[in-house]
């Protein structure tokens, strides 16, 4: 029997993240292909193991602080002792530095930006997004116990299932040189875009701050809110709490309309929960059209006013 497939359980403010559950679904597939067991590695609060029932076993070290340094040291130690076949690590802001550091300590690759992972004749092959999503690489590693950084949205989330078996494991941590102090909440006052049914997302293509009015008008007509991709937030045209994507919010609206967004994977990541996705972009080859259900290849400055009017007319 091949050695186990591991998933690093990511916890965020007292909860196991959605991405962790997705990785458990993927991990289960991979474990099935190689005839091995699926284990989750939970570093921190043991009570969270209840959410990890999709795994055959949970390895839990309760004494680990949520810093990349501590998580990496604990993970590296466990990998050395137990030699899993591979470790799936969420490719998120929360975990990517810990994954990279653990791999560095183990002298194994941390395979970046995997959207898929399969066993091919006993070797794991990852499908990785590179060059800002312009290309994809099929990557295998020559080492045992390789770490794979898996993008959110690779699979749908595994349901918690029955309470899993939990194996307590001990790790010895080095003296902490990176200490967590506190959380800083985003500026308040804006709408909570994660709770909206309709979102109008604006990107670089909106060009200027006062063009934001076009998006506001459309949002008003549809009864939704306006959000944006990173460049728009960087410009200060929307508060940080309205940023959608990898470093922003994960949103799940019923309708998501993207205006002048190229469709970089960092943004698309944030909208995997959206039900109907529409893109308006002047570049017919923009990757955003690969991530949407309906596309309009035209100037947003022409389409949006027309769309606003058409919505108003339809709604009466």
């Amino acid at each position, binding site marked *: 029997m091949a050695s186990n497939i591991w998933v690093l359980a990511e916890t965020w403010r007292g909860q196991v993240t959605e991405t962790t559950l997705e990785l458990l679904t993927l991990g289960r597939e991979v474990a099935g292909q190689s005839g091995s067991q699926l284990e989750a590695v939970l570093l921190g609060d043991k009570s969270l193991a209840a959410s990890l029932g999709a795994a055959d076993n949970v390895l839990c070290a309760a004494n680990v602080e949520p810093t990349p340094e501590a998580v990496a040291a604990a993970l590296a130690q466990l990998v050395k002792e137990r030699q899993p076949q591979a470790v799936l690590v969420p490719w998120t802001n929360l975990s*990517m530095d810990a994954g*990279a550091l653990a791999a560095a300590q183990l002298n194994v690759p941390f395979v970046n930006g995997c959207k898929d992972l399969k066993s091919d004749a006993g070797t794991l092959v990852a499908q990785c997004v590179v060059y800002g999503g312009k290309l994809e690489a099929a*990557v295998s590693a020559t080492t045992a116990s390789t770490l794979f950084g898996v993008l959110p949205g690779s699979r749908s989330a595994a349901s918690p299932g029955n309470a899993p078996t939990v194996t307590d494991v001990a790790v010895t941590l080095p003296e902490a040189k990176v200490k967590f102090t506190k959380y800083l909440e985003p500026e308040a006052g804006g709408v909570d875009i994660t709770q909206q049914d309709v979102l109008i997302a604006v990107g670089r293509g909106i060009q200027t701050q006062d063009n934001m009015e076009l998006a506001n008008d459309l949002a008003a007509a549809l009864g939704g809110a306006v959000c944006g991709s990173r460049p728009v937030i*960087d410009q200060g045209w929307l508060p940080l709490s309205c940023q959608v994507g990898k470093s922003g919010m994960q949103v799940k609206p019923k309708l998501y309309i993207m205006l002048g967004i190229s469709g970089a994977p960092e943004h698309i990541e944030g909208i995997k929960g959206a039900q109907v996705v529409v893109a308006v972009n002047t570049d017919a080859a923009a990757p955003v059209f690969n991530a949407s259900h*309906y596309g309009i290849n035209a100037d947003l400055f022409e389409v949006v006013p027309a769309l606003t009017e058409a919505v108003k007319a339809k709604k009466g």
Partner: protein
Amino acid sequence: MNILVLLKMVPDVVEELEVAGDGKSLDTSFLRTIINERDDHALEQAILLKERHGGKVTVVALDAPDIDDTLFATMAKGADRAVKITDAPEGMTTQMAAKLCGQVVAGLLPADLVLTGVQALDDLDGLSAALVAQQLNFPYIGVVTAVTAGGPTATVLKEFAGGVRGEFAVTLPAVLGVQAAEKPPRYVPVAKVRAVMKTNKIETVSAPGDAGAAQIEVRQLAKPVVSSHAEMLEGSPEEAAGKLVELLAQRGLL
């Protein structure tokens, strides 16, 4: 404070990227390289820190096409020294490159901080910042968006999801993987870069030792399969808008 900044050049995706005949690597015939965006932010953060606390900023980079222009620009922005690593093998992975760069960085110590981008467009087998931190045995944290120094620790903000950031106290010296500087990277007038080219020199060091072998194999490199292309709504803007509204109404979204 002394700050080392590790930069790398990555393919410029403004140009179409093409896959070479082997199906596994980039076609370099029309390839242009550009400074990795997050490394540019790391440089900006370093210069902001220098402006606040004084000290020196030293930039380190592997040789690449157009690297000299980039390094002169970093000096025009405020870096004090630029060190170029020459004679490195071609086609190194991130892991291999970090092995060489880490040794060069070690030779330039002492430093209070080593800053580099948290990730790069072309990383496949690891992240430079973490790899270099491991080599130097320095503490490391990534996805950094602000740094306040002063004293034996730095206060570092790491960005999480949803606009929430975490504050960490990091014992110096440390390696930080920068996601974004506190301000967007500054503009440097061309005349200033040209002046720096006349007065400043780029130092060079030969790549030290062995970069080792790649621990990954790229089996295939390809443009993403367009499996789920959007249904395109054609016609004038008004016509396309009309079609969309009908579709949304059918799905009960209005």
